[in-house]
């Protein structure tokens, strides 16, 4: 991938990701409502929420909190930009981790017990999903001989043919990353959980709006990961990849609505077991056949 396509990728991500992410969140809420037998909010509701949050009176617990939240936002955007510019997969994974850490520090800095429990659970969730994310990167490396996204999407083979186990494992931890039940431990979009807003308890107004838009950027980037499994040099593969991305998101909504929240012990055990059985075994097989 040359410089022009990289710049186009970054520009498209910066402009289109919040729009697509917001629409996806709106469709998510509509489909969730229909699954629960309700009519549901308008598709544009997440945008109304976002602009409402911008209109609210700014209240911050301390000055440093907003700084950390802005760092979270900036690093999420940088992660996505690196990804859509065809950058290095390992760098992308670690800059995503850095972004999440900034959000955790922001929550810790408020000294509120609810925010702290949420932040602690966020750390546990990161422990749960991190191994599988790394296995995914290693899998792509063994298959393509390169960590670069630009090499992966222009290779002759389709990732899913050789990495089906890693794909299953990745979709499993995607539930954690998308903050879907049963793994919405640190922060939930639904009311009436034992720890409702967790991580975001102390954020309000503009700060909350920044977190919302960062989540839209993050969700689009995460679906980009799913895209990687199906993209290759063939012309029709991007179409298939986008269809699979949407199907995966629908599956996540279905899981979200059919499971109650689990304990963090289950989240860690289950995702490590999935990472070992599906991810690691897939890596071993790949190692022997290649």
């Amino acid at each position, binding site marked *: 991938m040359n410089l022009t396509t990289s710049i186009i990728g970054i520009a498209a991500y910066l402009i289109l990701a919040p729009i697509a992410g917001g629409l996806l969140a709106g469709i998510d809420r509509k489909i969730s409502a229909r699954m629960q*037998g309700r009519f549901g909010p308008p598709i544009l509701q997440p945008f109304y929420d976002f602009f409402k949050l911008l209109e609210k009176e700014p209240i911050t617990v301390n000055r440093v909190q907003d700084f950390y939240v802005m760092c979270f936002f900036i690093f999420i955007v940088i992660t996505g930009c690196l990804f859509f510019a065809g950058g290095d997969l390992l760098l992308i994974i670690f800059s995503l981790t850095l972004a999440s850490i900034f959000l955790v520090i922001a929550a810790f800095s408020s000294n509120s017990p609810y925010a702290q429990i949420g932040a602690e659970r966020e750390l546990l969730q990161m422990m749960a999903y991190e191994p599988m994310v790394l296995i995914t990167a290693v899998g792509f490396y063994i298959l393509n001989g390169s960590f670069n996204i630009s090499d992966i999407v222009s290779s002759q083979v389709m990732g899913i043919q050789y990495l089906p186990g890693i794909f299953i494992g990745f979709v499993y931890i995607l539930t954690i990353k998308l903050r879907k039940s049963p793994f919405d431990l640190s922060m939930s979009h639904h009311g009436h959980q034992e720890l409702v807003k967790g991580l975001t308890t102390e954020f309000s*107004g503009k700060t909350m709006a920044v977190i919302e838009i960062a989540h839209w950027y993050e969700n689009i980037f995460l679906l980009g990961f799913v895209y990687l499994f199906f993209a290759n040099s063939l012309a029709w593969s991007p179409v298939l990849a986008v269809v699979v991305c949407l199907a995966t998101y629908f599956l996540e909504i279905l899981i979200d609505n059919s499971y109650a929240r689990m304990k963090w012990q289950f989240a860690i055990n289950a995702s490590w077991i999935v990472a070992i059985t599906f991810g690691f075994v897939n890596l071993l097989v790949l190692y022997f056949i290649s």
Partner: protein
Amino acid sequence: MSYVTKSPWIIHYDGSSCNGCDIEVLACLTPMYDVERFGIINTGNPKHADIFLVTGSVNEQNITVVKLIYEQMPEPKVVVAIGICATSGGIFKECYNIMGGIDTVIPVDVYVPGCAARPEAIIDGVVKGLGVLAEKRAAMDQKPAVAAEVKEKEEA
């Protein structure tokens, strides 16, 4: 038009209600009434909320709680008193531990009487609250200077 009327988030607090009005408030979220059609979400967090729904009257022990929730909500905010107990104290008015309606502690914008208040009446009350919310939002734009002055006086 202000976006605050399109996405009113709610926090619900049970003062010393008999739970009758609480059940009716929660009934508004069920498929039968589904207030999420209007973008209304039950947040459970005062810092995210725009509308404060209080059921039941205020008693000696929860004065501070009601005040704290109210103070933690960022402007513009609206308080809706649900049920006759929250409106005036109802049949508990003469009790030794009851202060009376919610307006004895914090300013109330909309009163929804009833024992228990019906979900239709509660939704009506919240929609009425949206009008007040829009007015308060407009007032924030018009006179930030006045608001600053008031704040300075309060601090002094």
